């Protein structure tokens, strides 16, 4: 376990460093600075501005200073919102993203595990097939197709009072929140269901399950106490990378349902060329992702003794 853990722990900051370096280099070589205004700025003001954004230093020192700032958790000032820092923007908008993302993850895991287990138990029946087909459909359909369709279906078409008007307001409007969370959760639920089904089917044909069955254990006990632990292994290793999809998915869902989350700020920043905001958000997303990967690797190491030995 020690070596496995050590390797993961070394790898995680390395990934982050690559990401930070890439974004830093990209943004520095970008054509046009943030202050290329039409009007000529007073040289003194320009110098002061450059000093504020540290553009007066040589690139390698800018890089080191940026790394130092990041280490202190400071993402720097925003290029476009002159009066705000990226930290303030993140602090104002991240909670919304976390709320929707967290709920979606919970929903996806619950629904996915249940459906996957059900499909595995009813292997090769009509229930299994319809669940598998449904999972395939929702895997193929991206959030930006499902989201607008759901919004139209329940809003403009069925005129549900709970989602009409389609204005997001956290728990104040649970209908809208539910639609957003469902949109985000569907592809994950599908993936989780597929992984659970495949993992369980793999397990139930193994000898120890046959032994358990021969000993007369009830079916649900075999399923939950014996099969599920091995069956969820592929699921655990999927959860880390799934965080990335959850983040990109939330970019879309926040656009569709007008959620004031960080994803929307990121997209706006990207379209407005707010370089520091984009950089800060990418680094933050990267850190989240690396953290999730690390967690899922650790969980896998705890659950699966085979992993620790490699």
């Amino acid at each position, binding site marked *: 376990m020690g070596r496995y853990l050590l390797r993961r722990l070394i790898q995680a900051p390395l990934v982050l460093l690559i990401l930070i370096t890439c974004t830093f280099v990209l943004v520095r070589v*970008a054509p046009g600075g943030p202050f290329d205004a039409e009007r000529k700025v007073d040289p003194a003001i320009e110098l002061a501005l450059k000093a504020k954004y540290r553009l007066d230093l040589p690139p390698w020192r800018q890089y080191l200073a940026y790394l130092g700032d990041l280490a202190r958790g400071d993402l720097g000032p925003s290029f476009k919102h002159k009066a705000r820092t990226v930290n303030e923007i993140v602090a104002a908008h991240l909670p919304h993203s976390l709320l929707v993302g967290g709920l979606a993850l919970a929903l996806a895991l619950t629904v996915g595990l249940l459906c996957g287990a059900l499909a595995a138990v009813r292997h090769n029946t009509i229930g299994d097939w319809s669940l598998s087909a449904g999972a395939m459909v929702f895997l193929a359909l991206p959030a*930006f197709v499902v989201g607008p369709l759901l919004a139209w279906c329940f809003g403009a078409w069925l005129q549900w009072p709970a989602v009409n008007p389609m204005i997001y307001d956290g728990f104040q409007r649970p209908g809208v929140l539910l639609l957003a969370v469902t949109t985000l959760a569907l592809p994950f639920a599908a993936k989780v269901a597929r992984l659970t089904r495949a993992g369980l089917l793999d397990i139930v044909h193994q000898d120890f399950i046959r032994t358990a069955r021969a000993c007369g254990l009830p079916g649900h006990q075999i399923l939950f106490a014996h099969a599920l632990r091995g069956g969820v292994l592929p699921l655990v290793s999927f959860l880390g990378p799934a965080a990335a999809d959850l983040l990109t998915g939330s970019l879309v869902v926040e656009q569709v349902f007008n959620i004031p989350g960080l994803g929307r700020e990121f997209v706006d920043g*990207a379209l407005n060329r707010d370089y520091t905001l984009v950089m800060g958000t990418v680094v933050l997303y990267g850190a989240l992702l690396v953290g999730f990967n690390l967690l899922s690797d650790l969980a896998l190491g705890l659950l699966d003794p085979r992993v620790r030995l490699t």
Partner: protein
Amino acid sequence: MSDTSDRGRSPGWQAWQRLRRNRLAMAGGIAVVVMTTLVVAGPWLSPHDPQRQHLWLGALPPGSGHPDVEDENLFAIGARAETAPRAARAGDLLISVRESVAVAYRVALRSGRVSEIVRVAGALPVDRLEAGPGLAVADADGGSAQRPLPAGTLVRDQPPPAGWFAPGSRVLLLRLAAGIAERIDYHVVSDGAAVRAISRAGVAVERAVLRGEHIERVVGDGVELRATHVLGTDLQGRDLAVRILHGGRVSLLIALVATLVSLLIGVTWGAIAGYAGGRTDRLLMAAVDILYSVPFLFLVIVLMVVFGRSLILLFVALGAVQWLTTARIVRGQVLSLKSREFVLAARLAGQSPWAVIRRHLVPNSFGPVVVYATLTVPAVILQESFLSFIGLTVQFRGQALDSWGALVKSGMDALTGDRVWLLLWPSLAMGGTLFALNAVGDGLRDALDPQIKGR
């Protein structure tokens, strides 16, 4: 496969049999072929142009048609032809504004003088602007209230002609430019209920049946000219069907090229790692492991923000996101192949390592690579559409290439009440293609490697 008839057949034949029995995969394959044919051939065969706007048509529901006033016989008059066409009356001078385009200029005034004139498309600064008939002015907040202007000239740092706009206002000027060669003048003469347009040479060209100012029918050369929009039109009056097909071209093209790029990188990387072995292998594969957890899509977004939304960039960037798994697959294949006799023979024959990789190892490891590539194509379509959905549409020669993601996005934005077809058709086209491609990929994988069936 334990069928006795399968004995002695090649693995490829057996895989084909397994694939043929997978109805979903076969249906998906047929759907992919049909969709690709439509997307490639459709825009050429369709009478509609995906770019040409007809603002007055607005969003027409699917299946609706209208008299085809878009060809050589636009019965629209005057400066506001593009936004509010009026049918011709006897005695009117008709101008065929085929290929007419609206060019928008933004004009800012400062202390009573014109401070800047900017051609909005391409943000080109202009020093003076001749305002002939055909210039319309939008109101101060750039909205849609437009009125035609009298002739005059706007010059920078000069006050505008009297009565043009209120001092300090920001206005949007629309210039309706028509290609000189395309512009034909017709005179309209009354002929009972119908109105005929007669060109300057005195030849009767077209005939339109009017009711009041409403054009009911247009006849040219004895044939009624009608345009039908099978899937309706979008807000700018562009035919939706041809736009979807055109968007499919963009999506599929990007997906194919990016997949090829990913194959190029992945196969090279994996083959070198597998063949070299030892420290090189460990180093290259450690790099792959690390890159796996880098959120590349965010990097692609940063790339597009920094370097603009060029097509080439997107090819390379999306391809570079996808090569990691290919590299792993190829490495595994090469590892198992390189100790085989034919590789040894090639090496003994004095072939260089590079030649061995290229001629013997890579071609022999292509099966699984192709399977993975068929699953890469829908993944790339998804990513590209995601990018254009959030607003990063690819630009090519100054024009936005609207792929499926952009169409879904504009459908979503236009979604009020009964205009659902604007969202539905692009979504269906994209969802169906993605589903079909995934079905084919899964089917191929199951057929070539029956051990992992059902995953």
